[in-house]
């Protein structure tokens, strides 16, 4: 089976986020770049599916040249092919992003490469539009399930599960289909040394995507009011034993 995963290069934020003075970007001077945890899981799922069922895995991103890093990271984990839909670095809105991806998938089909499964993260780590997967599915007229946390392939079908407050929602979708994945579906592996070195030498298939206006326009970013955290020291050197047990019980971890 052939699987395509879409990912997005985002700043690896943790702790306090700072913005560039013009409020247009996150200040990334001290930050690395990554993809969202959902996308990490989608990549892992794609690798596992092809390990189990055969076929090919491909990773795709719409982004600047630097996004090659994220493509190679995916390849270091076992994805075979990578496609960069290169932009000039501006932030594309979900409508435009989905349209560019659809165009790429259609071009793939024209070249004889079809996909049984197209996966995305449930939402991107930065703008969190929740839309790209759904829009791609709609444009390609494919069934789509979002926010899945379990996936099993049987005989041309995907049985997927979504977690709800009251239990699991199960869907059986015929392939080809579009799925958006949520963190927790699997525990992604770490890249191995040989994996990383192999990925370094692999070719990246590139095409250029021309800027398109979408439905959204970024005015400026604004930081939300930071919620302060308080730390309570329960005790030192073992004299907090009882409190720790109580706390763990309260969290239902014991």
């Amino acid at each position: 089976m052939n699987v395509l995963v879409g990912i997005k290069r985002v700043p690896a934020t943790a702790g306090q986020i700072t913005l560039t003075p013009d409020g247009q970007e996150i200040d990334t001077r001290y930050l690395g770049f990554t993809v969202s945890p959902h996308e990490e899981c989608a990549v892992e799922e794609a690798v596992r599916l092809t390990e189990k069922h055969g076929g090919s895995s491909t990773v795709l991103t719409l982004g600047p040249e630097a996004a090659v890093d994220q493509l190679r990271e995916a390849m270091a984990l076992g994805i075979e092919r990578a496609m960069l839909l290169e932009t000039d670095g501006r932030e594309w809105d979900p409508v435009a992003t989905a349209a560019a991806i659809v165009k790429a998938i259609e071009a793939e089909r024209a070249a004889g490469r079809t996909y049984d499964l197209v996966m995305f993260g449930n939402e991107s780590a930065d703008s969190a539009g929740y839309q790209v997967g759904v829009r791609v599915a709609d444009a390609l007229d494919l069934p789509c399930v979002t926010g899945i946390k379990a996936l099993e392939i049987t005989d041309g079908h995907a049985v997927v599960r979504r977690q709800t407050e009251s239990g699991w929602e199960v869907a059986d979708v015929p392939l080809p289909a579009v799925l958006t994945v949520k963190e927790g579906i699997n525990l992604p592996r770490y890249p191995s040394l040989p994996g990383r070195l192999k990925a370094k030498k692999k070719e990246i298939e590139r095409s250029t995507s021309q800027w398109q206006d979408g439905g959204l326009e970024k005015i400026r970013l604004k930081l939300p009011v930071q919620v302060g955290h308080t730390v309570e020291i329960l005790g030192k050197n073992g004299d907090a034993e009882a409190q720790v047990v109580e706390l763990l019980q309260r969290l239902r971890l014991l």
Partner: protein
Amino acid sequence: MAGLPAQARVVVIGAGIVGNSMAYHLARLGWKDIVLVDKGALPNPGGSTGHASNFIFLTDHSKEMTLFTLDSVKQYKELGVFTQSGGIEVARTAERVDELKRRMASSKAWGIDAELVSPAEVKRLVPYINDAIILGGFSTPGIGTVDSLRGGTLMREKAQAMGALTVAPGTEVTGIEVENGRVRRVRTDQGDVETEVVVITGGIWSPRIARMAGAAIPLSPAVHQMISVGPVPLFADTVGEIKYPIIRDMDTNGYERQHGSDMEVGSYDHRPILWDPDDIPSLTQSKLSPTELPFTKEDFDESLEHALELMPDILGDPAVGIRHSINGLLSLTPDGFPLLGETPEVKGLWSAAAIWIKEAPGIARCVAEWMTSGVSEIDPSSSDIARFYDHQKTQAHIKGRSAEGFNKTYGIVHPREQWDSNRRVRVSPFYEREKALGAVFFETAGWERPNWYESNKPLLAEYGDRVMPRRYEWDARWWSPIINAEHLAMRDRVGIVDLSAFAVFDIAGICALDYLQKMCVVQMNLPVGRVIYTSLLNTAGGIKADLTVMRLGTNHFRVVTGGADGMRDRKWFADHLPEDGAVQLTDLTSSWATIGVWGPRARDLLQSITDADVSNEGFPFGTCRFIDLGPVRALASRISYVGELGWEIYVPFEQGARLWDAIWQAGQPHRIAPVGIGVYGTTGRLEKCYRAYGNELEQEFNLVETGLARPQVKPQDFIGKEAYLKQRAEPPAAILCTLTVDDNTSRSGFKRYPMGREPVLSQKGERLVDRHGRGSYVTSAGSGPSIGKTILMSFLPPEQAKVGTRLAIEYFGERYPATVAVVGPTPVFDPQNTRVRS
């Protein structure tokens, strides 16, 4: 958390391994009211300690650094945070195999148990290594790892238990207030603390903190990349953090070190990635910690390949993943040494920075001793922050040299190797003349100094094999037989030497004599016009400096010291000036250029351009005065560091070139040769057994041991006198001797030429150790072209310090026989000093 006190004996800024060790040692030495602040949280406030790979290799070619490391290991062991694992430096190239032999020699010199091992033995110790690509290893069983965060915590708690320490995490220093050049108060976001002493142990942030007080701590933060790979199945049953020896893959600048179930792979192979201290993110801005920056993969790819090649069984396992990768920040300095001691800019502001885990507690002990008593057991001269000239504190210099030094971390660095970056900063007025004569310039303290002159090549034919040519490439590197030819030409005729790198200080004022009496060992109350060679001691009787003093007037003295020591010596003088201004020190280094003219024809040469009486009676040895030399009036001083008749001539800087020309022209009938520092600093000096600071002279050996004790002690008091009198009353534990190499032919038939720091052994190869536990090693080595032998100096225990004792030195894994030629200061060449006094 206790609040900040309003007053403190000392404020230590930075609670990494250095700050915690400092607090502990200051408390142990009796200081109370110590305050330790850090803007971060404990136990890991976010500095380099928190991400260090925490392993300790013992051997460094520098004695000072090795002593710091050995003391640190001892302390870590006492704290119970050291795990001995052994460690092996492996060689992939023949050149490295040689270097490992040299490291073996350093290990013997400093008393470290180590051995050279075959690839098969490496494989036995480290079963997962690819022994097919290595040629051998240098194995040190005493190597291990530490839990530096735990060690720091324990030291901090000890100081707290002594009731001596207030710890204030989450406290950011916002200012250091200085009044009359002295620290008065530390300002923080949690309040101010009045104090007269501050120690900056802020690692990579130290330059920023020092700047608040108007001082400089010249270091650069630099990236060191490291990844952690696991879980390694072979390590699954390891109890504790490490079971297998740590590997340093020297030729690829990498290391592999087990850490629990993971393998840490680190590299110094990538391009130097330097940061500005002001650009380091704050605690809240950074993802992991301010010193763990985003990994830049492209810089590490090559290192990955090297690591994979060396340990394919472990690192090639597809189930073993890269779990963690960082660009960890560490500190680099322009010369690779730490930055220790009171800053020359601000009294009471101390630096303990650019220190790695392996040496931190040892350095902290040293600095704490220095702070509390003025002297330390280990001599920190090479690391003294006062060593830098202003130009060496510029960002251009710090960055240039730090970048250059980074890739030498595991490098094979020749003892004479020169820096490439930031050259031609200080040039004498003779520079263009020297360049025209084909000078090959070596650098001292930023000065370009001719080491030899290619224009002297014809002298090689004149002297033939007397120039002691070297055919082994290592021995001939950064060297030329022309040095020895210049030496012989000077001894036969006359040479002109550029000595402008000297540091020159005038000391004047109504109390100048009393002041210098207090500073110097030798009687300073000599007639105006006398030149005095003297040592300066610290209170423990350790040798702090050696230099010459000219008495230019009743209340006017001129001090001349070596360029490399100039700034340290200046601080030592300045620190002891009377506060009432009765004595003034003026640094005239940039005002006076210096030329040495030495050789049997020096007098004839000089007489031909002066009306002054320069006869032996008219200008006796050990005197100085202004004379007219052609159109220039210069200060001539009749002394010599090369053992020849002649003068040091001090000339106003702008008239230097004119004087050079006058001497050069007058020297033509005498076949004058331009002579480089190769002669001045090594061959000429060694034949005369003159001691050099940093080689023979250091705080660890006293004047009696170095043979510089005078027959009489002056009645006036001076710093270190009490200790000196005690030293004189005791039999010396070691005596500085001059040896000559009996046969320098190696097994492969090459003549080999040691360069210093080799271990001196018995003929059977046993180390010689004196009653203070100090091993014998070669303090200086070089050719003695006039005696046709290789000359060595070494401190020997009294049993061996006898003329004719046959010993051996180890050089690149082979022993060469050497014999004690002289015990004490008598020269091996012209022992009666008739030439100097002729």
